């Protein structure tokens, strides 16, 4: 189990670095899918099978398909770094250190000394009850937000 966790974690980190460092958009998108799938493996190791497969279905199977589709339609090949990239090179390093420190600190505060978080109760029934009982208002508000976004996209597309 621990070995599997380290494999999944290392793959996720390397692929995530690849997403940022790649110059060809399609490779970046594919590596992002690898990141999402290795995160799903980590969810599986935590005993959250439902979340793991939903992660794959929603992110890898639906959202990333749209990314890849758009890249295919634009036929985007290798990109050359522009003006913005130079700024990113100077600001990127310091920002990276700050964010990393923040994440480590947060993890440390949450689980002081613990090797791994406690097992989750993340079956479909438990998640359904959380979504539709405790958090029903945020859930519904989010769905309305998404609906508004879809309508907006349709209106914008019809204009031209």
């Amino acid at each position, binding site marked *: 189990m621990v070995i599997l966790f380290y494999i999944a974690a290392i793959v996720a980190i390397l692929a995530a670095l690849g997403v940022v460092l790649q110059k060809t958009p*399609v*490779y970046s998108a*594919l590596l992002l*899918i690898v990141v999402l799938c290795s995160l799903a493996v980590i969810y599986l190791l935590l005993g959250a*099978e*439902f979340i793991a*497969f*939903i992660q*794959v*279905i929603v992110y*890898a*199977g*639906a959202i990333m*398909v*749209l990314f*890849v*589709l758009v890249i*295919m*339609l634009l036929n985007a090949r290798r990109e050359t770094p522009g003006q913005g990239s130079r700024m990113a090179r100077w600001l990127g390093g310091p920002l990276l250190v700050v964010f990393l420190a923040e994440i480590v600190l947060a993890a440390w505060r949450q689980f002081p000394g613990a090797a791994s978080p406690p097992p989750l109760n993340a*079956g*479909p029934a438990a998640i359904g009850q959380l979504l539709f009982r405790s958090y029903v208002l945020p859930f519904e508000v989010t769905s309305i937000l998404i609906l508004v976004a879809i309508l907006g996209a349709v209106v914008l597309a019809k204009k031209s």
Partner: protein
Amino acid sequence: MDTSSDTAFFLGVTVVKVVVILWVLLTATAYLTWLERKVVAHIQSRWGPYRVGPHGLLQPLADGLKFLFKEDIVPADADRVIYWLAPFIAFTLAFLAIAVIPFGGSFSFHGHVIPFQITDLDVGLLFVLAVTSLGVYSIALAGWSSNSKYPLFGGLRSSAQMISYELSLGLALIGVLMITGTLSLRGIVEYQQQHGMWNIFKQPVGFLVYFTAAIAETNRVPFDLPEGETELVGGYHTEYSSFKFAMFFIAEYANMVTVSCVATLLFFGGWLGPLFGPPWLRTWLPVFWFCFKVFCFLFFYIWLRGTLPRFRYDQLMAFGWKVLLPVALLNILVTGAVVAASS
């Protein structure tokens, strides 16, 4: 028995199961191509393959050898990494889904109870959906990486088609999940056993929507626009040759088997059927019933191909979004109302 030898036994059994099931599935897909050529030939008053072996029974082997020995051509402008990756993705995903499909009850061997299934996941159905939802990448990437116009059109069509129909496919299954209350494929069959009735009688609309969407997901006639020969030469795999083409081909047929397995499990009682005879027959009859039902679906697939013409692309999209999706949603509403009223 101590736990370490138990673990070793479990591992050994699992490896044997994986090997046997992969072998059966590969042989089945190979002979599915033979069956398809034969059935379509007879529908069209022809003989079909007849020369290689009796009734052409060795034709799949001959085809396999032919694929192996043909020249493997890579287009000059292709994106090589992705061009290589695409058929492997298709092949792997097509065979991954079978891991959670239960073929029968269980049998005992040296005091161990061994289920007819590689692994029983609590959320087995979600696993199948997750694996099939990734299948679109192989086709989209194959079309894109060939860097040629017909494959690109095929890949684009296919991506759009699969995204559209995946939605109806998932929604059609929700009706069954609402009734049975479980995502485990074994659990869904056991529910049908307890209630003495196949789910098809409770969810006829769900089944029709599921199977229609599934045919579109597997790119078969009448929804085989991604590879429509008459307009796209061959679609997304136009530029593929030799064994890489064979991998796409095998993956397509393996996907048909998976879709038929899911339909059998969810709507037609899986391995349930009349049991009789001595104990060993009672153990193996369920496996036979399961295979028989899956075979019926596969035959139906081929029958459709011999009968129906291809849709036009705009008809396909309109059908998916304006007919199938609303019907699937309505099915969920009605099922929900019935479940709420009866509980």
